[in-house]
């Protein structure tokens, strides 16, 4: 069984458009939406939820009225999460990382660690394959942990149903949810665009993939928007041994398809659809090998 993650660094480069197309064309596979705080795969895949579970994130510190205002916890907290500890103590749950130092040091035993529900995750069926997806509560923390949860479920499904491939639609950025979506996968596909922002973020996400020793492929979306930048990306790929697997034409059928909740690959005259099919055929040879 192989796992591949689609990432980009910069948002809005076309990860979900490409992921949904691959999911429709692939076989013997499981899909994961690892963009847990802005998930979009369900819009096209229209999943039927089979199993729903609550997500409890990491712990946060809560203080009781036994607090003696000694100030020790504030002194030792490395995350600036505690303030006014010698008067009416405040704990910023956004900054608290649940390390437990304050609880350990508190002479009055006034601090406890508590775990709250921070979202839900789902095992679903679609017309194409099983989909594991999630909904992080608005503004919640621990998105990386939730990504690990959904990936574990996808792996269980893949083993029990004897699937050959897990396709993971990643989040933008290079931080914890992205790293959680890359951890231990066989391949990463970076979807980039020929803009200066796209290039800057492409280099960063490539460094992350390299850091974790993942075989990396790249694909340039809307490549004809700026051919000078496209050739910059091509050169970068050559000198860094990144397998540039394809280029996709700028095509206004893409947002049109999204708005009609249709797959771009079902548009017969779409240049982008043709390019995506070509990328998939090349990729499928590697993935199913």
């Amino acid at each position, binding site marked *: 069984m192989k796992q591949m993650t689609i990432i980009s660094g910069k948002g809005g480069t076309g990860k979900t458009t490409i992921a949904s197309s691959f999911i429709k064309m692939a076989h013997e596979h499981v899909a994961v939406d690892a963009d847990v705080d802005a998930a979009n795969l369900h819009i096209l895949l229209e999943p039927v939820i089979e199993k729903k579970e609550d997500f409890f994130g990491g712990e946060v510190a809560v203080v009781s009225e036994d607090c003696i205002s000694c100030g020790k916890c504030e002194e030792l907290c490395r995350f600036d999460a505690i303030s006014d500890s010698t008067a009416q103590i405040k704990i910023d749950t956004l900054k608290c990382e649940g390390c437990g130092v304050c609880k350990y040091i508190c002479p009055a035993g006034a601090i406890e660690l508590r775990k709250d529900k921070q979202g839900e995750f789902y095992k679903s069926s679609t017309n194409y394959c099983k989909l594991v997806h999630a909904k992080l509560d608005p*503004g919640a923390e621990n998105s990386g942990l939730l990504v690990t949860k959904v990936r574990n479920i996808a792996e269980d499904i893949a083993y029990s149903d004897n699937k050959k491939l897990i396709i993971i639609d990643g989040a933008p950025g290079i931080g914890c949810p992205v790293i959680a979506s890359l951890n231990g996968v066989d391949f990463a596909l970076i979807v980039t665009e020929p803009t*200066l922002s796209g290039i800057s973020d492409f280099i960063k996400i490539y460094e992350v993939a390299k850091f974790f020793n993942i075989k990396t492929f790249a694909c340039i979306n809307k490549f004809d928007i700026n051919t000078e930048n496209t050739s910059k990306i091509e050169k970068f790929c050559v000198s860094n041994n990144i397998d540039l697997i394809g280029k996709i034409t700028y095509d206004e059928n893409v947002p049109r398809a999204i708005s009609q909740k249709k797959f771009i690959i079902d548009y017969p005259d779409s240049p982008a659809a043709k390019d995506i099919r070509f990328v998939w055929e090349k990729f499928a040879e590697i993935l199913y090998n």
Partner: protein
Amino acid sequence: MIISIASGKGGTGKTTVAVALALSNGYCQFIDYDVEAPNADIFLKPDIKNIKKVTIKQPYFLMDTGLDFSSCAEFCHYNALAVIKNEVIFYPELCHGCGGCILVGPQGGVREKDVEVGEVTKGFVKPGIDFLKGNLTPGSMRSTTVQNELEKMVNSKGDVIIDCPPGNSCSMVMAVKNSDYCILVTEPTPYGFNDLLISMAVLDKLKIPYGVIINRDGIGDSAVEDYCRTNNIKVHLKIPNDVQIARCYSSGGTLLDYDISYQEKFEKIFKEIEGLVYQES
């Protein structure tokens, strides 16, 4: 007044809007809070004054002392270390640098060193605009540590414009939480609409007032606009879908470079927001 520019979905035009707002305002502090993929400098082209490293403290264990470190492993809430046969195995990528292992471990057995997780860049964009950006080191998960450094440097005496990271999780909350107003940038597609609703839920929870800018207007459907109309949410601007704007953006051009009339449009938006914020308070 602190104005943040956010968007649940990535790539909808946060930076485009934030940059245009800053340039048309002329006197403000601009902060790129998208520490995982900061791009505003591509458009603002600031002169850099200094770059400060952001570090966290991580432990190392003096194993030749023969001391027993099992209490450290038991304490660690992140499972960043294990002790097997008196040997410490440390996973630095899981360590948050809380210092717990030093507190609970054998005295003198655990020491700390600084580990770089990113940097903060200070500069200015022509007299009037102070520029700040955070930059996370690839491979590090300490986005919030870098954002924390930025937070300490916010100068809220004047106007502050914050370019937020995409999404609706903690790093977006870190960026918007102190703002007086938030502009949500979206595109008129089901993806944009879906993620916009989640961002609105975050801002409602934080009690931060907000309005919407629709970018690439015309590519999709009217769901976003209908929703805003029905729910009395201010749509400040619609930027038309135009491949020329995309081309201009691709080589580092701003909306004002593309069409100088955006200067006036964003000045007007700024005044609208001032009106809304001071009327609220």
